[in-house]
C-alpha cells in the first residue's frame, strides 16, 4: 500500500522533471543521451565551480570529477528532486570541499553573509529627511528606451552584463546564474544550493540590483 503511494509520488516528480526522458535513456546505457546531459549542464557546472575555486583549470577538474560521481551515484538516484538539482548539489559539495582544500577561497561560511546589508540603490540617490519628498528620488533614473536600440543589444553591453555577474560575490553569482540565465525556479535553486527561501530571495535581490547598477554605470557614464 505505502509502497505504491511512494511509487506514484516518484512518478509524479519524474513526470515534472525536464530531464526525465534523458535520464531514462542514460540509465538504459544510451551514450548519446549522456553526452546531451554533459552538453546541457556542463557549462553551468563549470560556471558554478568557478565561483568556488577561481581557477578555471581546477574548476574543470571539479566538473569532471562530478560527472564521474554522478554516474557512480546514478543507480541510487530516486527522483525525489529533479535530476539537475541533484547533480548541482553533488557539484556544489565537491567544489566546496575542493575550495577548502586549496584554501584559495574565502571560507564558505563567510560567503553567505557577503553584501547582505548594502542597499540596492545608493542612499545618495534619494532625498534626505529634509528633502521635499524624503526617501524619494533626487533625480529619476534614465529611461533606457531612449538610448539607441543597438546600444542595448550590442555584444559589448551583453559582455558587460556578463562581466558584472562574474564580479558578484560567489553566492549571489550562483543564484542569479541559475535563476536569470538558466531559468530555474526559486524552489529548484533552494534545493540545489541548500538555501532557505528567504536567503535565496535576498541573494537574488542583491545580485540583480548590482547588475542593474553596473549596467547603469556602463550605459550612462558620468
Amino acid at each position, binding site marked *: 500500500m505505502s509502497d505504491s503511494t511512494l511509487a506514484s509520488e516518484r512518478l509524479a516528480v519524474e513526470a515534472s522533471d525536464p530531464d526525465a526522458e534523458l535520464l531514462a535513456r542514460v540509465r538504459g546505457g544510451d551514450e548519446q543521451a549522456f553526452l546531451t546531459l554533459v552538453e546541457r549542464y556542463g557549462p553551468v557546472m563549470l560556471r558554478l565551480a568557478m565561483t568556488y575555486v577561481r581557477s578555471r583549470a581546477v574548476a574543470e577538474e571539479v566538473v569532471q570529477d562530478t*560527472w564521474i560521481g554522478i554516474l557512480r551515484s546514478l543507480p541510487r538516484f530516486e527522483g525525489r528532486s529533479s535530476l539537475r538539482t541533484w547533480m548541482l548539489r553533488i557539484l556544489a559539495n565537491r567544489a566546496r570541499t575542493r575550495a577548502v582544500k586549496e584554501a584559495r577561497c574565502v571560507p564558505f561560511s563567510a560567503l553567505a553573509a557577503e553584501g547582505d546589508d548594502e542597499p540596492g*540603490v545608493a542612499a545618495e540617490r*534619494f532625498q534626505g529627511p529634509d528633502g521635499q519628498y524624503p*526617501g524619494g528620488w533626487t533625480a529619476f*533614473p534614465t529611461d*533606457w528606451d531612449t538610448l539607441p536600440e543597438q546600444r542595448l543589444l550590442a555584444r559589448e553591453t*551583453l559582455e558587460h552584463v556578463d562581466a558584472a555577474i562574474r564580479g558578484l560575490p560567489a553566492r549571489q553569482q550562483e543564484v542569479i546564474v541559475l535563476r536569470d540565465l538558466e531559468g530555474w525556479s526559486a524552489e529548484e535553486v533552494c534545493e540545489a544550493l541548500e538555501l532557505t527561501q528567504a536567503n535565496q530571495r535576498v541573494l537574488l*535581490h542583491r545580485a*540583480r540590483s548590482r547588475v542593474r547598477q553596473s549596467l547603469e554605470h556602463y550605459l550612462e557614464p558620468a
Partner: protein
Amino acid sequence: MRCQELVELVSDYFDGALEEPQRARFEAHLAVCPGCVTYLEQMRTAMRPVHDVQALEHRPEVVVLLEAFRDWRSAQPHAC
C-alpha cells in the same frame, strides 16, 4: 511607500513573492511615480538572459567522460 523602500522590493515583486498588503502598496506607488516605473524597466533589462559567451564556446573535453560512461554501463547489471 517611498521610492527608497520600493527599490528593495523589485526582485521579490518580479518573483511574485510580495504578500498583501505590501504588493498593493507597491503597485499603488508605481501608479503615481514615473521614476520607479523607469527603475523597474531598468531592472527588467538587467535581468534579461545574456548568453554566457565563454561557457558556450567552451566545448568540454568529453572523451574521458565517455570512457567513464562506458565503464559505468558495463558495470550495470541490466544495461546491454
